[in-house]
């Protein structure tokens, strides 16, 4: 017989889990119902109908949008790491730009997208880059790059600087020591930052909605597209949502360990 306190805790956890997971269950069920039965929660059991899935995966442009999202996420993360890792190293080792820099990066990370979007749109429009994936990548970098940099600063902070010094005495330059010792030593951090940055890009709808159209749409924009002027195509939308959710869920699973550490900015030693 469990103690009442344990029972209560269990109950609270169960409630929390249910409230988080129920929408997923509902979406999953909706994706398997024909259109006229989607809005009928009173019918607990409806024979599964793969029509929505077939429509989304084989008879629509959703696969292309998935590809777009993958491309945007991958390029965004690649650029963010290419710039962010050396930036993090510099910030950690030389407090580049003074004490304000770290704060500025954190602030950039937290800035509401609405602040950035207008100037960004104007710049991209003048550069004739709107309606392109390049525009989305550039927009996503405004928040992925600070996140990745902030994340990696913590990992570099945790790395004793004697490691690079040893490598430099051992025969490397500062730069090759960074490549051969610092980067491999913070590989877990880089992996976590990459996944985290990818998820942020993957989930973004705001920038992508404003900056893209037609063939350059990303998956979240495409999902929103099922909300048409004739009504919401709930079943197809549900199927597309599940497609969008799966990689994020997997990422979260792999990330849980590193996320806390990265967000702690290296303040807490493990």
């Amino acid at each position, binding site marked *: 017989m469990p103690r009442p306190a344990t029972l209560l805790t269990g109950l609270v956890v169960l409630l929390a889990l249910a409230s988080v997971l129920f929408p997923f269950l509902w979406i999953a069920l909706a994706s398997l119902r024909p259109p006229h039965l989607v809005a009928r929660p009173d019918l607990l059991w409806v024979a599964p109908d793969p029509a929505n899935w077939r429509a989304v995966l084989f008879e629509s442009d959703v696969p292309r949008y998935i590809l777009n999202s993958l491309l945007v996420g991958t390029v965004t993360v690649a650029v963010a790491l290419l710039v962010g890792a050396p930036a993090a190293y510099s910030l950690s080792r030389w407090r580049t730009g003074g004490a304000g820099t770290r704060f500025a990066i954190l602030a950039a990370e937290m800035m509401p997208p609405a602040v950035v979007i207008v100037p960004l749109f104007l710049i991209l429009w003048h550069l004739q880059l709107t309606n392109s994936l390049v525009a989305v990548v550039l927009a996503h970098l405004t928040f992925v790059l600070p996140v990745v940099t902030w994340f990696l600063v913590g990992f570099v902070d945790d790395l*004793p600087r*004697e*490691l690079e*010094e*040893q490598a*430099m*005495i*051992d025969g490397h330059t500062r730069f090759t020591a960074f490549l051969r*010792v610092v980067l491999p030593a913070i590989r877990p951090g880089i992996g976590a930052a990459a996944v985290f940055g990818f998820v942020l890009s993957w989930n973004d709808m705001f920038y992508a909605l404003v900056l893209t159209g037609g063939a350059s749409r990303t998956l979240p924009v495409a999902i929103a597209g099922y909300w048409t002027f004739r009504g919401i195509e709930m079943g197809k939308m549900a199927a597309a949502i599940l497609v969008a959710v799966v990689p994020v869920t997997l990422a979260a699973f792999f990330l849980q360990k590193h996320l806390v550490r990265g967000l702690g900015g290296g303040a807490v030693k493990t």
Partner: protein
Amino acid sequence: MPGIRLERLEKRFGEQTVLHALDLVVDEGSFTVLVGPSGCGKTTTLRLIAGLETPTAGRIHIGDRDVTGLEPRARNVAMVFQNYALYPHMTVYDNMAFGLRARRVPEAEIRARIRRVAAMLGLEALLDRRPRQLSGGQQQRVAIGRAIVREPDVFLFDEPLSNLDAELRVAMRGELRRLQRRLGVTTLYVTHDQEEAMTLGDRIAVMEGGRLRQYGTPREIYFRPADLVVARFVGSPAMNLIEGTLGPDGFRASDLELPTLRGPAGPVVLGIRPDDIHPFREGRGLVGPLAARVELVELLGPRAVLTLRLGGRELTAVMAEAEVRDLGEGAGLALGLDPARLHLFDARSGRRLPDPAPVSAAAG
């Protein structure tokens, strides 16, 4: 094997000067220890030689090469850090091979060298492990092995033993000494532990406040400290220091008179090592007797540390256990000082004065 020569080496961090025009010659093949309290500039000196810091002024020579402007990798030195700085993502083998690969040594030779050094240090079974799978002592060995395998001109050690527990530290100390003898590589070793310095060094450089206070053999440092700083720093328990004046009638302090001491007149500090205070006996040539009271006896086995009260001051003495067996706390004790082992320092400059050999050992 080249030695190291530092010429007027100076380092400032902003307003703060951490190293004042240091001149130091480390002999070829010698084991030289830089010792001093934290912040004395010893680690900065080591880092300057390694090329990890840039000197504000002065030159650094390794052998007949002026390495002052060279990058660390061009200096052909090997360094062992206090935290070992083992590359966490590499095996022990790769850690040791890293510096050789950076210098494009052929893999076959790398393998041979690592095998030889691993055998020397008992690391054969650990070559496939990662640093985090090793104990502190094993990590230490790997760090040393990584330095040896490089076959550098100079070894630089920055407090390499201070993260080990006491027993292992003493064992590693002996091993390091033997290794260095065997390899004959010029070694500069930084520590804040004066005992480590005494046991390891052919020569010891005592630093304080960014200045070299004394450079000599362990014997010279211990038996003839050049100034009060060195006298205070070296020796455990610490030297007893008594302020007084020297005049025609000998040494006088508030509650101590040693009429037989001679030297230039003026305010002085008399230094007496705890080992040079004995129970007074006639005919041994001791200065005394001085009437003291025993405050505390701490037995260390064959020897005992005594806290004594002599007038208004406290003295520390180290005596053989047999000599203090019957002494309880509060007991009176007549002290005799070994006149050949007394130290006099100028009270103003802190510098050592000529030996205060008494006019006649039998007097007093």
